[in-house]
């Protein structure tokens, strides 16, 4: 089986996997980074969102062979102490219900704020396309605004 070397959360990793293995399953099954969630496998729900070279990517669609020397950041590597402004805003707004989709939502929100530090409602709505079956969308929008107001920088 081919071997792949890349950087996850500032750590060099080396994995053996079939070339077509989605990064999602490499993270979850081989690197034990289970904060990145499986929800649909077809890039619809966004539960598997990670940062790839700083951009939000649905890891169910990124084959491990395409990662190359790129830098991968998962929810576990977003901040050292779990205190990224977006994580703090999520706790402050008490966003989660079941909580399953929230790591993907947070990764998507962090990427949005990096590009657009003060997004409008419309900009949030057109950028964040993740699915939450619990319907926490209203609080997600408010949490993004809260993080933005605190300078939700990386």
């Amino acid at each position: 089986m081919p071997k792949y070397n890349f950087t996850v959360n500032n750590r060099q990793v080396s994995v053996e996997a079939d070339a077509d293995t989605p990064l999602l399953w490499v993270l979850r099954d081989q690197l034990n980074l289970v904060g990145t969630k499986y929800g649909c496998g077809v890039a619809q729900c966004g539960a598997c969102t990670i940062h790839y070279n700083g951009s939000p990517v649905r890891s169910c669609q990124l084959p491990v062979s395409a990662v190359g020397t790129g830098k991968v950041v998962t929810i576990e590597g977003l901040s050292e102490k779990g205190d990224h402004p977006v994580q703090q805003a999520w706790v402050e707004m008490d966003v989660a219900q079941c909580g399953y989709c929230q790591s993907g939502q947070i990764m998507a929100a962090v990427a949005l704020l990096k590009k657009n530090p003060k997004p409008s409602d419309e900009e949030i709505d057109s950028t964040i396309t993740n699915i939450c079956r619990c319907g926490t969308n209203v609080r997600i929008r408010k949490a993004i605004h809260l993080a933005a107001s605190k300078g939700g920088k990386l």
Partner: protein
Amino acid sequence: MSTSSVSRRNFLRVSMIAGGGMLVGFSTLGKDEKATMDETPFSPNVYIKIAPDGKITLVSPNPEIGQGVKTSLVMLIAEEMNVDWQKIQVEIAPLDAKYGSQTTGGSGAVRSRYTPLRQAGATARVLLIAAAADTWGVAAADCYAENGFVVSKIAGKKLSFGELATKAASMPVPANVPLKDPKEFKIIGTRVKDVDAQAIVTGKPLFGIDTRREGMLFAVVARPPAHGKKLQSFDDSAALKITGVKKVVQVKSSVAVLATSTWAAIKGRAALKINWEDAAKLESTTDHDKAFRELLSKPAATPNRNDGDVDTAMASASKVLDVYYEVPVLSHAQMEPLNFYADVRDGKAELYGPTQVPQNLVATVARELNIPPANITLGLPRQGGGFGRKLRPDNGVEAALISQAAQCPVQVQWTREDDMQNDFYRASGMFRFKAAVKDGNLEAWQQSFACLGNGRSPDTYPAGALKNLRIESYSLPTNIPTGPWRAPTHNVQAFANECFMDEVATELKKDPVAFRLELLKKAKEQPVGRLAYDPDKFISVIELVAKMCNWGKTPANTYRGFSTWFSFNSYVAQVVEIQMEKGKPKITKVYCAVHCGRVVNLSGAENQVQGAVVDGLGHAMYTKLTFQNGAAVQTNFGPYNFVRMRNTPLDVVVGFVPSEENPTGLGEPGLPPIAPALANALFAATGKRFRRMPFTDDIQFA
């Protein structure tokens, strides 16, 4: 150990922990079992543990599925013990008969635990105070508990709960510990953030899907591709050649592929060559819809309820409204696709995974695998949504069978497609509503409901408010599995009822809010037959939502729809506001008024209602599942269309009617009235009635 009977069915038990500390727990046993219980050794798995170092642990009996139960239950004991809720650790209890029913469903967790947990907390407080008073040689009445300490008013001393715990466990348990006067509540009714919030936002392994154990294989299962098909034969030679695939086992009519990673298992499954055969009729949605219409055109079945003389009133009416409403099949689509861990070897089973019915799951595994229940352990993780799907134990039972067949620990992972094809679906159905109108009055009301599988209209509002009323239900036999889905039956009945109510109000040229109030006033003053609801509570939510949105003064360029419903002993009234953007409706704001007894966690309660609104709006606008020859046509998000941020109202404002009564349900009641409120707003904006869900079959949203 001391025991105290605090009610006919609940027995409070207090004991010392080996090595120090106190346990306070409840046993929900019958009265006759008391004597036996006193003689049996006391198990440490109880509700509250207080360690000598002051650490307090609540062992929560109910699985957390996103309804916030872990947080609410902590608040109840923290309130009665006078301790900071943040000092209390929560563990979800493994399955054990001593906890009573651990089922999560029917919006019942807080409802059923409200009083017992407060009693446990209050008892702990009284015993800690007694231990302190005894230590200081003062009267208990001269001491009080505050923030994790017992303080003496006279001696000017204080001792921590941890220091007192061991001694407290030996103090006699009082028979009737008074609960706190709600006027003194400092925690119940406030906003408390989810106790798992930090773990959630940092991606900690909280869920069943995150289970990783030594020697475990990942399994993906080929199940029949359509309802009505079964396994005939299979060839696994190509599958076994896939790198990482270790084993292939047949379980009932399915074939499981076990591999060293989920992806290898998925590829292995794709490489299976399987012949499926037809074992029963392969059903299609178009046939169901035709059958519903035929059922509803037949003479009345035996009615669920029949007040007055509907037929005579219809015959003498000046106008009869006669309309149909349609609702589709829905999948549960909880965000965490089904999964389960099982290790079944040597006549023992270790199980871990998401379920809403732990007892049922273990009983079924015991029966199907022929293992004594005593040899089965079941752990309950946090769950990525329930919505009723996990009221069936099939995911856990299947995993156990696979592990037994493969003789190794296994984590069975369902793909989203597996989840949607193998659901116990929300049944589709059709309603026929008739109303007799004469001299500007509603004289008679008839509601008939035909649905897939067994369904029955609830005997509830507006029954009791109308002189002539008939409720009828028809079942369509099917081999498509159906089951409870968030607010079962209510989620379709409210849509049809409250849309039709709006149609009647329009016909009578009455304001929709005033019309409901008029009916409820009649139900209160001159009820007809059985009254399943409290008209005053109903009126209270309608009046509150009207006040919240300033009903009657609609903002410019805005259209409103109103609806109200009663379910799980809670009352909800909602107003949806929409605006038209380039001819397309956009939902801008929603107002909700709720009567659910006393609110335990204001933040959690508000979140549940806001979530139910967004969830209900999304399904009303976009979501349906159809069948073609027994196979689900929509098998993943996308075709199975779902609400996203851009279709979410900018705000969902929630108001609670203040109440001194014990909590009633809240995980579900916010959902039923939202679809009709939206349909009624769409009528206000377009002049068209939207009588079938999802509405995107008939209109595009902005």
